[in-house]
């Protein structure tokens, strides 16, 4: 039986299963979240709350912890995303340059992904500890640090945001490198050959041929990682629980703390909703400017 669908209907048909799934399993909890933000329910009795209008939003915005967490979230994203993009792309190019022999390096590079973020957070807490952390001792043995306890990675308020970023960069550079590497493999070899024959040197080929062809993949990686960085939770929570004295408290930690530790469902939902709205705006802008999916596609 052959029903002749036009392209547009065909595309919608392909989208339908995924859309249905997300409608049921995500839209409903999200609506519940937004609903909760207007009530003052507690985690232990979520349905027993009263309608409080915008109170939760007002008290969240007024609290100094919220604005601090917001600033720290932006700072964290600005630290983490550029680092992992630059390092990841460089690594992918490096692997690509040595071709098949890079298999062992790619496997090694994937190690951080094998370790649960849970474990990675605890491991790095261990490594960065002032007293018995190996990192400080290695710096001491190599001669960079006079005293192995002189850098307090996780308890110095001015340093802590950078310190908690280290495991995240370690974990996610792998992701970027492997995805970009896969993208590089999709670039047809003859285009690059043609460029070389035309006299282009390595960096010229990179700039004028490779990177433009990689643009969709890079855009995807940038957007995914940008969102993930803003959302980072496990790694920071496990290392410092937001300390010392909230110096590493980002929004996702604050949402967790408010919703789960304090049991304040309403306030937690309000912060989460605001976070979501902000991220939606950012992502619409990002998708529109950085990448338009289906740009080179057949017109439907």
């Amino acid at each position, binding site marked *: 039986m052959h029903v002749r669908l036009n392209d547009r209907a065909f595309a919608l048909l392909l989208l339908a299963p995924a859309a249905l799934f997300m409608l049921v399993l995500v839209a409903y909890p999200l609506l519940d979240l937004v609903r909760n933000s207007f009530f003052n329910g507690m*985690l*232990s*009795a*979520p*349905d027993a709350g009263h309608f409080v209008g915008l109170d939760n939003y007002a008290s969240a915005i007024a609290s100094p*912890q919220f604005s601090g967490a917001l600033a720290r979230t932006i700072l964290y994203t600005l630290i983490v995303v550029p680092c992992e993009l630059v390092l990841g792309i460089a690594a992918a190019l490096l692997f690509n340059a040595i071709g098949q022999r890079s298999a062992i390096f790619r496997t090694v590079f994937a190690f951080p992904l094998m370790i649960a973020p849970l474990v990675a957070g605890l491991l790095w807490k261990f490594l960065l*500890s*002032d*007293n*018995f952390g190996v990192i400080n001792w290695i710096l001491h043995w190599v001669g960079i640090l006079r*005293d192995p*306890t002189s850098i*307090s990675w*996780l*308890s*110095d308020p001015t340093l802590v945001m950078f310190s908690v970023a280290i495991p995240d960069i370690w974990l996610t550079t792998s992701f970027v490198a492997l995805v970009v590497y896969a993208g590089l493999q999709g670039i047809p070899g003859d285009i690059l050959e043609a460029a070389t024959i035309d006299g282009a040197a390595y960096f010229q080929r990179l700039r004028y041929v490779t990177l433009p062809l990689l643009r969709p993949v890079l855009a995807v990686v940038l957007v995914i990682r940008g969102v993930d960085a803003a959302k980072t939770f496990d790694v920071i929570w496990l290392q*410092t629980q937001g*300390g*010392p*004295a*909230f110096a590493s408290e980002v929004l996702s930690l604050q949402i967790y*703390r408010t919703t*789960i*530790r*304090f*049991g*304040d469902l309403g306030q937690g939902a309000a912060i989460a909703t605001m976070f979501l709205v902000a991220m939606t705006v950012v992502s619409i802008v990002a998708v529109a400017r950085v990448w338009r999916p289906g740009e080179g596609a057949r017109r439907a």
Partner: protein
Amino acid sequence: MRRVGIIAVLFVLVAGACSSSATTAPGGSVTAGVTLNVLVEAGGYGAEVTLAKAFEIATGNHINFVQVPYQGVYDKLSAEMSSKAGAYDVATIDEVWLPTFASFLVPLDSLFTADVKSNLFAHEVEVAQQGGHYVGMPMWDNAEIIFYRSDLFSDQAEQANFKAKYGYDLAAPTTWQQYSDIAQFFTRKDASGAATLYGSAVTGAMDSDFENLSLQAGSPGTILDANGKSIINNAQHQQALQYLTDLVCKYKVSPPNVAASDWGATQNLFNQGKAAMMMFWGHAYRFIPSDAPVVGKVGVAPMIAGSAGIGATPGPWFNVIPTSSKHQDVAQAWIKFAYDHNDFALQAPLGLVATKSAYNSVVGTAGFENIKPLLDTLSGPATKDRPLVADWQKIVDNVLVPTVQKAVACGSSPTDLLNAADQQLKSMGH
């Protein structure tokens, strides 16, 4: 390829559906054949696993432990409270959660006979009562005691030097002054200025030291009074925070940057032989690794005393029954069994119990040297529980821990910090 994938999915879906069948039988019987689901964290599991086997032999009912991380117990009990699914019959919870769940717990008044009440510590009985009923039976109790390096304290040269410098004999500290003197005495540096030994570990990332000291100084309660109103900046709390700050900032008896030292860090500093003393939870005595440098060199003593005597904030854990449990009578039988055979828990790694009789049964036994100091501390005149208000966790996270961390960062005056904390508590309704 997609076709194969779809079949695989269907297969696993079917298999998955078959794996999730109900565990609990409808209704319940007091007799045999019932499986109780008990929610515990690691310590609870260790303490109760042998008890469970004995219970099974005695009654023919099976105990199934659901072991989760510490915060997971709170998370899952909260989820249970909202879904009322009957997933758990008993939970072993930290006392700080009792107010939150009190309305959701089955009253255990019938278990609290006069004998039972006199066999438990006073603070346990007080805390178990929420909203006019006893809602939990203590499973184990814990308090912070003094750990010290017995090898250093019994060394002749050290004793002579100490006596010469301070004028009294070197022994386990019993007062604030002694603790401070001994800590200063044992803070040693080598020729290059690097520390070789610290006088005392200080847990700068937790509120427990501060609370203990405030009680020892004679405060009528710690942080909040009996009506839930803030007393955090009264004279005794100021003395307590000043003492702690002096140890870290003035006398420098601890490693720098203790603001990030949690319990694990403190315990490890002592176990690695880098600290001469620590104030730590009593169970840690049996947790010293067999290959640690301090094995055989650890002495224990009751918590120090302030002007109000020995004081500490204990940490009891309670067995509770959610009202959604479908086997409440068997659950109650299990809790009673756990109480009657409380001494079983002594053999667990945690080695802690809740009853005086159980503790007394091992006083003087080798390997249980920490029990007498624990008993003394738990019965101390100034020993009192933390205030059990519904937003206690919020108070700890937003007020107490940051205050202590700022104090031990040595840039602020304790009085100023406590006044600010008081303002914060007032704005939270206390």
